């Protein structure tokens, strides 16, 4: 339930996840993964600011970032590989990013742990992230409608999927701007 002082606003939401981190934890230990994730999220937070957004919260290996515009969210998501460079100790591990982007009305409010966003659209982007494959961005139809023709050209054909608790959702897929693991 959103806090009492919450207000409604249209926001672009990005959820990103690191594929392969569970396997890496088993091989390298939790500390190595923890350090990798923390440093990546720190750089992603700075990148979000450069794209007029904010990294709102970390959820394990994932994070949730918010933007006013879907185009900013897309540019941010596509640039994520540029700040995802595992150090030499893990450069040979099979890690990859994936992300989901959605645009819609959310409830924005202050909580004891800082600002947060609430509502069905937040659930939607989290469920949509489950559709993304490794090294892939999925973007909802609602977010695609906010993009320019040039940006839309990056997105593959529209698909639909039944998302748990949400219903049928249209989305497209695209790759990241550059492949990750630049440190490898």
């Amino acid at each position, binding site marked *: *339930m959103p*806090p009492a002082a919450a207000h409604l606003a249209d926001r672009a939401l990005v*959820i990103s996840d690191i594929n392969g981190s*569970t396997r890496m*934890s088993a091989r390298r230990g939790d500390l190595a993964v923890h350090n990798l994730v923390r440093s990546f999220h720190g750089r992603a937070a700075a990148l979000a600011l450069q794209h007029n957004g904010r990294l709102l*919260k*970390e*959820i*394990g*290996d*994932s994070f*949730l970032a918010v933007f006013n515009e879907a185009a900013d969210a897309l540019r941010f998501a596509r640039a994520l590989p540029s700040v995802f460079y595992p150090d030499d100790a893990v450069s040979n591990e099979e890690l990859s990013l994936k992300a989901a982007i959605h645009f819609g009305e959310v409830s924005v409010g202050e*909580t*004891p*742990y800082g600002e*947060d966003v*609430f*509502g069905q659209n*937040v*659930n939607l982007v*989290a*469920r949509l*992230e*489950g559709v993304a494959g490794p090294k892939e961005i999925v973007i909802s139809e609602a977010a695609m409608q906010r993009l320019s023709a040039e940006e839309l050209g990056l997105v593959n054909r529209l698909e639909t999927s039944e998302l*748990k*608790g949400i219903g049928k959702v249209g989305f497209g897929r695209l790759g990241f701007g550059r492949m990750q693991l630049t440190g490898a």
Partner: protein
Amino acid sequence: MPASEGFPPAIEVATEAIAIVDIVDATKMSNRFGWYAVGRGVLRDLRSLIAQVGPKRGLSCQKSTGDGYLLTFRNQQSAELAAILAVESIFELFDLAVRRNTGVPEEQALVLRSAVHIGEVDVLPNDREGPHVSFAFRHEAISRAALAEAINPIAPEDLPLQNYVLCSEPVADILRQRATRWTPVSIGLFRFKGFTGFHEVFRVNPTPAPPC
């Protein structure tokens, strides 16, 4: 040589409802008041209460976890019914614990929390193994602090500190479709260590009686 020689015996796999019952602040209680003075008696009373509520509802395994018990429930007719009976058992357990606590010194109070999931488990003598058991424990471990790392979380103060039941998505689906006495209410989408993707977690609330 018998054909089976040299091979481990086949392990039975069953679909069971998995309930984790934990004594809230058990470690703190034992540290402050002593395991032999207080902790052991509280755990013994919990075991006694489980014996009152579980067997009549298909309790098939009761394994100590130190601060509580791993319980599983099985129903030959319907695995879904096992989940409902598990939830029913836990709520009756809470009621019995509240009654037991009446007149008991505060430090000896039996205060519980629980999580219920359903899935396939490896059946071992008086124990259960498998990812669904781990998944149930991940639910039970959710605290107010964990809400800060959830998607669409409830306010921390809306998660009680005691006598609450959390359940997984499959159990919530079963309760919605087949039980009218309880209503699952989402508390957020969580990520669990060792499990991919987001998992919605629900608090099970007794459904208010309709107005007469």
